[in-house]
């Protein structure tokens, strides 16, 4: 390789410096202007436009509607509600069928096989009652809603609706002192927060990018949608007559998602007024044309790529978690299992927050993946309540065929509507999963910001649930 004498470089750089003084400060603008002029000339020569504008432009008509001041937000909420309603209504039956198959049929069959070949009780328990059941439960709870929700969401994305959502939210982000493009990284966070954090790279200014990273957690992710959907249909949907249940549950989930968006605004606003002060940058957001979604391809890719990848991730975390829960429930110290000790220890604190020790322990177990929160809660509730008829031993995932049975189990565990509401709130606000935390560290390269991103949501979650619980109980005492 030839090397060049270094002073050559310095000469060039010095010369460039002095030339810069001569040509003046508007060089950059002149440069851009020249490029634009030439580009426009070349384009004009190559393109022949239609003689007259078509009288009816479908794209612009749709845009006027979906980004209008009056209809933009209501339409957004209606579309979201429809998506969730279809998800909730459609997932119920296949979820039940999967549960019947994996929990009622395959599990007893495996137990029978292991008994007949004389597997020791603890291996049988660890593998079948711990790891297998945790995984089977995750699959039957998560697969149907995801297989409906992701294709619907992807169809909206393919069609070109997401940038319109960003367009509608842009103004609010700027008012909050954040970058308008944050609406895009937030939308990405609705799929996965780790992906949303990476997506903040489209934001130029470090200050605004940091705001977008720190607040991405408030966009409900894949792992939390199933929790919201299940709890909403069990507790909120049950408040109204059956035929309205699906719609009301969908509205509850939309409410939580909207609350997340509002929290994003509020926390962005707070950050930009305090630790991350600065100017708001301007940018132009391009609204892409509407494209007819390719339905079959979208369904195929969103089921294969998104659904199965997310499910696989959940399964890989459910396997060890199932083992841990089973062990913690079966290793007894001083008359109580380890899990029992932990739950008793956290229960008083949990109750103050309108939650309970089981939920708090479940959230600790589920730090690697939010997906396993519900299965863990159910497993631990069986342990604590010693519910009979559903389980067959400590730390055993049980066979619940219907929502009604799940509901009655949770009620045996002392759950009320308040517990459900606060669980939904805590699921929205609490810390991001470990993958997201690691991604934040990689993107910011700062231990300080990573710690803040991980810890402050938990504290906020505690505060919100505490306040809700106190107000709720106060109002209840008046009634």
């Amino acid at each position, binding site marked *: *390789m030839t090397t060049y004498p270094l002073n050559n470089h310095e000469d*060039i*750089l010095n010369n460039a410096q002095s030339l810069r003084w001569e040509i003046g400060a508007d060089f950059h603008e002149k440069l851009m202007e020249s490029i634009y002029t030439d580009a426009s000339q070349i384009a004009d020569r190559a393109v022949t436009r239609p003689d007259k504008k078509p009288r009816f432009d479908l794209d612009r008509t749709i845009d006027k509607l979906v980004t209008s001041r009056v209809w933009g937000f209501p339409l957004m909420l209606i579309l979201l509600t429809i998506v969730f309603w279809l998800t909730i209504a459609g997932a119920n039956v296949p979820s039940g069928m999967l549960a019947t198959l994996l929990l009622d049929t395959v599990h007893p069959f495996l137990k029978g096989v292991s008994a007949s070949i004389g597997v020791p009780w603890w291996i049988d328990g660890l593998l079948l009652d711990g790891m297998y059941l945790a995984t089977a439960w995750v699959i039957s709870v998560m697969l149907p809603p995801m297989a409906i929700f992701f294709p619907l969401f992807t169809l909206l994305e393919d069609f070109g609706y997401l940038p319109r959502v960003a367009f509608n939210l842009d103004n609010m982000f700027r008012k909050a002192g954040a970058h308008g493009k944050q609406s895009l990284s937030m939308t990405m966070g609705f799929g996965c927060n780790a992906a949303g954090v990476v997506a903040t790279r489209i934001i130029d200014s470090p200050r605004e990018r940091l705001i977008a990273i720190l607040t991405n957690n408030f966009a409900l992710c894949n792992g939390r949608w199933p929790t919201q959907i299940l709890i909403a249909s069990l507790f909120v949907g049950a408040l109204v007559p059956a035929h309205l249940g699906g719609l009301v549950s969908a509205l509850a989930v939309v409410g939580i998602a909207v609350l997340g968006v509002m929290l994003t605004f509020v926390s962005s606003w707070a950050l930009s007024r305090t630790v991350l002060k600065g100017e708001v940058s301007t940018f132009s957001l391009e609204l892409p044309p509407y494209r007819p979604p390719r339905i079959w391809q979208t369904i195929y890719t969103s089921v294969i790529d998104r659904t199965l990848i997310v499910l696989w991730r959940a399964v890989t975390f459910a396997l060890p978690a199932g083992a841990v829960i089973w062990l913690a429930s079966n290793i007894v110290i001083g008359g109580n299992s380890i899990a029992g000790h932990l739950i008793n220890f956290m229960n008083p604190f949990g109750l103050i927050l309108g939650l309970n020790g089981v939920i708090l322990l479940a959230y600790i177990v589920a730090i690697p993946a939010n997906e396993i929160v519900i299965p863990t809660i159910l497993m631990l509730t069986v342990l604590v309540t010693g519910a009979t008829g559903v389980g067959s031993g400590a730390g055993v995932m049980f066979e619940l065929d219907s929502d009604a049975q799940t509901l009655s189990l949770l009620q045996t565990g002392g759950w009320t509507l308040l517990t459900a509401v606060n669980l939904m709130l805590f699921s929205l606000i609490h810390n991001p999963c470990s993958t997201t935390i690691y991604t934040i560290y990689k993107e910011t390269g700062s231990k300080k910001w990573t710690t803040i991103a991980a810890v402050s949501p938990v504290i906020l979650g505690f505060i919100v649930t505490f306040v809700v619980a106190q107000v709720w109980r106060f109002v209840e005492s008046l009634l």
Partner: protein
Amino acid sequence: MTTPTQTTSAACETCPVHNAAALKKLGVDMTDFDFVVALAGNPNTGKSTVFNALTGLRQHVGNWPGKTVTRAEGGFSYGDNKYKLVDLPGTYSLLATSLDEEVARDFILFGQPDVTIVVADATRLERNLNLVLQVSEITNRVVVALNLMDEARRHGLQIDERRLARDLGIPVVPMSARQGEGIPELLQAVSEVAKGEAVGKPYRVKYVSPELKKAVEQLTAQIESAFPDLPNARWVALRLLDGDERIAEAMRKGELGDLTHGSIEARAAQLQVIGNQ
């Protein structure tokens, strides 16, 4: 295995339709590639769709700008050669103000791809040409993939792609990647440029004011004499005059010198450096 090549005339071999059969999608297999191809373009012009069509991978394609912020890589083989394809984040310019723009710019400059495909939106040609002109300042190994021709037709636009190719001085391939239209022609153009069979003579932006022109010419001459093999001295001069610190630093560290001797190994090392940033 018998391929039709053995029985067809020489004219067939340059016919892209015939050669479409020669595309092998290699997915993530990128071993022993002969050429590196970069995919650049404005956001939401269908880069990822082209990427998927060539590699057989299923990079998620979204209809919104800013979907790809990192590089995605895949492989394909066409004819006798293996290619590594790098999907860059969408950018409107190469003036590198944000991280995603910088990823694209650095790769085209320091990654020294053998061919850079600029995917352009036929319905918004003028704005897309801004990037085409900037890329062809850096390298003359450019192919324009004029994508979304179906949408252009829907809007009643007629585009004279031969006129465009002549004006730009580089190959222009009209296509609708979503429908798979134009992929064979694109492959043919890419392989010709990669093998040096078609050498582009890209259009150079005219800089209107005389002082500007003088400054650019003077600095370009100086850079050319210091780095005789540098293919884009004028572009480097423009960047230095614009006060681009990244380019000044590259010059100080002698990275620009390395570029002119782009063996595969040196190039791989460069990629490593960029990857680590």
